């Protein structure tokens, strides 16, 4: 009998071209996404006068620096940002890459449009010069972020050298209570294992709560893997996955579809396969979550209190905790639901898909935002779908700032959508790092319904308290 294998083992083996004497594997890369900040990598290629080895396997998408107010050149309001866009476009044209540019409704955040277009498929290897590439693992792919030198290596060779990562499994057992979102599951996992808990590992998420998630929810969970320090996150493909992928523009068609699905059904961890680390989380105990500090591991149930440094016995930890609270402008012992906020951001590769917008709109409907709240769809097609469903109208009537153009926006702030110094923002993005949304900006991460709840109350709010009969 052959040794039981994990999902990761199977994908790894399938892409291993060779192993060098030091034990690193040369992996074939099926799909590569690049964006405006890939210019370093194209410069490296240019210096060597090299061509892209497999242009059809790279998809260039502008998302980081694009405006959200519209898709015209004038919307950039910055020559430098517009130049970055043009550099990407020129590199894509010169190397004959797939390119999704302004005005193309398929354009959007890479980690949203990759799955949406069917570029990202089960069993594939996917890389991008962006740490949230782990998102695509939700479809049963091995997907991870890389730096500029590795991007140039992929462009030149369609391969990457990788040491075999360690394997971790996170099982979420039981069931998911009402009003608990995929984001709450992700934040609970990170709180449990820590921001460095996954270092050197690829996480496979499994268990009944994970299996019951929609693909959009799975994308949210895998997206946050990097915030637990993991190289990648993945979920074995199942019927939910196949149904979601079928018919997408780049999904296999006809005979190829049958063949693909029968290959994908083998992509699961065998009974008896072992992991380097395993965690089990009780789904019933997960509640709506919010972060209070400057690392995604600083997450608490919304019913909690701001931690007190005085209760920390270790001097160094006490000093670190105090530093976080000073930065966040928070007093120890404050009820999280007493914290007033200045603005809300609903969007990013974590939470900008149609289900996220529906969740937020359900809370916003018939209520009124009392702080500036922007909603940025993850792709042009999601924007279109939201408009078909009338979600845009719900947001606009509730006083939200509905943005007509997709992009990373206020998650990283480089397109000009910034949080001002000392402003407190409730954000559906993935990072609450110091200065992430702008210098001295204070970020509280939540799921989309919780963000909408904060928008209509002006405070961090337990979405369950807004329950309608």
């Amino acid at each position, binding site marked *: 009998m052959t040794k039981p294998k994990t999902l990761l083992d199977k994908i790894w083996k399938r892409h291993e*071209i060779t192993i060098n004497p030091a034990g690193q594997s*040369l992996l074939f890369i099926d799909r590569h996404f690049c964006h405006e900040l890939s210019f370093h990598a194209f410069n490296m290629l240019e210096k060597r006068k090299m061509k892209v080895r497999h242009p059809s396997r790279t998809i260039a998408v502008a998302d980081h620096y694009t405006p959200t107010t519209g898709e015209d050149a004038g919307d950039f309001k910055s020559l430098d*940002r517009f130049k970055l866009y043009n550099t990407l476009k020129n590199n894509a044209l010169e190397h004959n890459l797939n390119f999704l540019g302004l005005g193309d409704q398929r354009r959007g955040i890479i980690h949203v449009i990759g799955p949406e277009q069917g570029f990202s498929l089960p069993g594939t290897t996917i890389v991008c010069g962006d740490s949230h590439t782990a998102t695509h693992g939700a479809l049963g792919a091995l997907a*991870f972020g890389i730096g500029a*030198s*590795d991007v140039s290596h992929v462009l030149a060779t369609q391969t990457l050298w990788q040491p075999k990562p360690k394997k971790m499994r996170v099982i979420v057992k039981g069931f998911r209570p009402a009003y608990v979102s995929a984001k709450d599951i992700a934040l609970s996992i990170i709180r449990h294992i820590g921001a460095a808990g996954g270092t050197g590992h690829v996480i496979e998420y499994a268990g009944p709560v994970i299996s019951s998630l929609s693909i959009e929810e799975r994308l949210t969970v895998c997206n946050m893997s990097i915030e637990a*320090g993991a190289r990648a996150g993945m979920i074995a493909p199942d019927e939910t996955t196949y149904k979601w992928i079928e018919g997408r523009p780049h999904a296999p068609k006809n005979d190829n579809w049958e063949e693909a699905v029968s290959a994908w059904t083998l992509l699961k961890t065998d009974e008896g396969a072992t992991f380097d680390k395993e965690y089990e989380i009780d789904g019933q105990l997960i509640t709506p979550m919010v972060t209070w500090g400057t690392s995604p591991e600083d997450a608490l149930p919304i019913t909690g209190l701001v931690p007190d440094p005085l209760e920390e016995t270790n001097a160094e930890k006490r000093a670190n905790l105090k*530093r976080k609270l000073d930065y966040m402008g928070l007093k120890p012992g404050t009820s999280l639901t007493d914290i007033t906020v200045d603005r809300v951001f609903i969007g990013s590769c974590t939470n900008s898909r149609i289900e996220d917008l529906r969740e937020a709109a359900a809370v916003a409907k018939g209520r009124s935002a009392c702080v500036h709240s922007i909603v940025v769809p993850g792709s042009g097609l999601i924007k279109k779908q939201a408009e078909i469903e009338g979600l845009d109208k719900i947001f606009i009537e509730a006083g939200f700032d509905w943005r007509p153009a997709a992009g990373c926006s206020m998650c990283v702030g480089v397109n000009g959508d910034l949080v001002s110094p000392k402003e407190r923002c409730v954000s559906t993005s993935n990072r609450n790092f110091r200065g992430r949304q702008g210098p001295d900006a204070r970020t509280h991460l939540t799921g989309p319904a919780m963000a909408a709840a904060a928008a209509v109350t002006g405070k961090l709010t337990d979405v369950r308290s807004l329950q309608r009969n």
Partner: protein
Amino acid sequence: MVPFKTLKALAAPINQDNIDTDQILPARFLMMPRDQKYRTYLFRDLREDNNGLQTPDFFLNQKKFSKAQIIVAGRNFGCGSSREGAVFTLVDSGFRSVIAPSFGDIFYNNSFNNGLLPIVLPESLVKELQQFLINEAAPEITIDLESEQIFCEATSWVKFDIDPHRRERLLKGLDMIDYTQQFGEAINRYERDCLVDKKWL
């Protein structure tokens, strides 16, 4: 790439965990080309306050550490964003090595592409090193990559572990694309034999 063999240099402590790459290189500098200004972005928002005034307790602003080439940091250094610019700005500022109990995986990987040596040591030892750096007037650490050891007066010789492939890359200043091209035959073979049953890609 400049090979890395041995280094004896001044070292500086950052005794905080989870120093993410947004701290090392704030996002607003990401669009900048890599030129002589790149080093000025290093830790910008930790080094200066909102009004552009230097924050005196940040290590780079202390005279004693201004010429440091080694950083001894807390857990999970370089976590977060994949931006290789975080490594560029460290290297352009003269840093050759970072010692920490753990690193963000992507940062760790990016380091080797730029001749920066990340060294993983047990947390207790890292704390000991940091204390030494705080106590001494001009604290130096010696790193010998060949024998995988570091030395300082407080700890004497300490062994560290590093993947042999990555070690060799640094020792030789090996360029990865050149290296991979030696495997051109294997890549061609894979593409010919192993992609046929994945024609839907």
